């Protein structure tokens, strides 16, 4: 489509938009505009859907396919496990994407991508056609690396709670039901995994709960990595100063199997550990649909992309973003980063569908706040810019850093961050 034609389409879309807001937006832009399908309504996909609509002046049709009825935020969900927040605090609606932005929302699950016919197939049986496809399927777990997790009932008993939702609340209930004096063991996989500081924040949250409600109980962190992978000195200080006698950290503990019947964790080199509550974060890879579609070209785990457009290196007109991608150096798998991918990808998709060159110098930041108690917070921040020679995103020298110490002011900024990113993603 030529630029002039697109502007005409966009203008018509805008004129309709004023009325469409009253009569339902799903048809803004008419049926002649380019079609973008977004798979997965997390931080990456929801942001991409909103920004493709906004930045095409509502001229590109966007269909978002998401199986869950609501958006559940992983960030802040550790506070639900700690007991200072509720599921309602991390549950958001998709309504604004539909009502304000005219995104066509389909509650379904994509079972197959056909890049030749440019359609996705739905679990319910239908097909949806696209000009460009944006996959943001998050992560799925490599349960085969822990064979016992595939036994009947094991996954209902030994929880990951690493996708916010039903398991978040279920883990909270296990902790509430645990008698005082019990051990909560948290198994962390080798990096890369979703949200590098997340497990250590969770340990703090559970420790704070124990310190108030079950002071004889222990938090045992069993980390496959050599040492704490993010904000190490800050977390270690919190465990030593605030949760002395409650938290114990053990590095180089690579879990190889789980016996759910006895709540026992088995390791490559270390002795078995039995716990009252066993919380296993399994190794992870790109979401199933990306792997099944042959897009996970890096170690069969992660999807390689062009960082100017997030187009897959394995399939044309298919973009992949968020936790599913093979990350650039020092780029975390985080909700904040997925939101940034969503906007970078949206700008590129709008450019490509309107015959323009995508931006050639993406720059974006990551900010990650971790609650070491229900109020005090530490952060890590970084700025990433495109390197044209290396064709990847690199951190800008001299930028970024961590908090000097946990503090309550950053606790307030962390909640302000949450409100703002939720709005930027969904409202």
């Amino acid at each position, binding site marked *: 489509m030529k*630029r002039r034609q697109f*502007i005409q389409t*966009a*203008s018509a*879309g*805008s004129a309709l*938009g*004023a009325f469409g807001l009253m009569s339902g937006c799903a048809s803004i832009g008419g049926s002649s505009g380019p079609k973008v399908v977004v798979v997965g309504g997390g931080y990456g996909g929801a942001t991409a859907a909103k*920004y493709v609509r*906004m*930045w095409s*002046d*509502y001229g590109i049709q966007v269909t978002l396919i998401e199986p869950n009825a609501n958006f559940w935020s992983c960030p802040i969900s550790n506070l639900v496990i700690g007991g200072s927040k509720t599921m309602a605090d991390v549950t958001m609606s998709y309504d604004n994407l539909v009502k304000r932005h005219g995104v066509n929302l389909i509650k379904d699950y994509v079972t197959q991508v056909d890049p030749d016919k440019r359609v996705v197939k739905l679990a319910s049986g239908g097909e949806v056609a696209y000009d460009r496809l944006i996959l943001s399927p998050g992560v799925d777990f490599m349960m085969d690396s822990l064979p016992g997790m595939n036994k009947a009932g094991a996954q209902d008993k030994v929880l990951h709670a690493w996708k916010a939702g039903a398991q978040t609340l279920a883990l909270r209930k296990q902790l509430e039901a645990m008698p005082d004096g019990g051990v909560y063991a948290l198994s962390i996989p080798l990096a890369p995994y979703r949200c590098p500081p997340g497990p250590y924040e969770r340990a703090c949250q559970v420790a704070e709960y124990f310190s108030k409600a079950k002071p004889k109980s222990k938090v045992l962190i069993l980390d496959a990595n050599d040492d704490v992978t993010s904000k190490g000195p800050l977390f270690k200080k919190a465990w030593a100063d605030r949760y002395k006698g409650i938290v114990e950290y053990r590095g180089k503990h690579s879990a190889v199997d789980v016996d759910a019947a006895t709540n026992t964790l088995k390791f490559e080199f270390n002795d078995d550990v039995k716990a009252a509550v066993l919380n296993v974060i399994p190794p992870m890879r790109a979401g199933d649909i990306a792997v099944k579609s042959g897009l996970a070209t890096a170690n069969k785990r992660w999807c390689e992309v062009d960082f100017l457009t997030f187009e897959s290196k394995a399939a044309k007109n298919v973009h992949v973003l968020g936790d599913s991608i093979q990350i650039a150096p020092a780029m975390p798998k985080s909700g*904040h980063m997925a*939101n*940034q991918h969503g*906007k*970078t990808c949206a*700008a590129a998709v709008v*450019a490509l569908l309107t015959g*323009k060159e995508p*931006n*050639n*110098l*993406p*720059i*974006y*930041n990551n*900010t990650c706040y971790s609650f070491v108690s229900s109020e005090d917070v530490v*952060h890590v*921040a*970084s*700025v*990433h*810019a495109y390197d044209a020679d290396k064709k990847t995103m690199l*951190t*800008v020298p*001299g*930028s*970024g*850093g961590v*908090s000097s110490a946990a*503090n309550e*002011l*950053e606790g*307030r*900024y962390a*909640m*302000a*961050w949450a*409100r*703002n*990113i939720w*709005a*930027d993603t969904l*409202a």
Partner: protein
Amino acid sequence: MKNWSYLIAAVFCVAASAQAQTNNTPDPLQVRSWAAGCANCHGTNGRAETGNESLAGANKDEMVKKMLDFKAGRRPATIMHQLSKGYSDAQIVAIAGYFAAQKK
């Protein structure tokens, strides 16, 4: 009329985009994407939710001065002294210009 303002912005961006190729100012669409990188904390188009500063419609020179002060360590911050160092002075000027032009 939210949608009309987007249309005007889009037309302006196309015109400005052509102009950008003739001098060294960054492409407005590029600047819009850089600015969008701030939205996670400062709101879509700089219109923030409670608890963080709104940048939409703020004074450009004041925003530039604040950022350069963060960058030089002259202004205390929890995080902005670290993030501001990721952007060149010219990029900061361009991003501030984008936010100054947004509706409050």
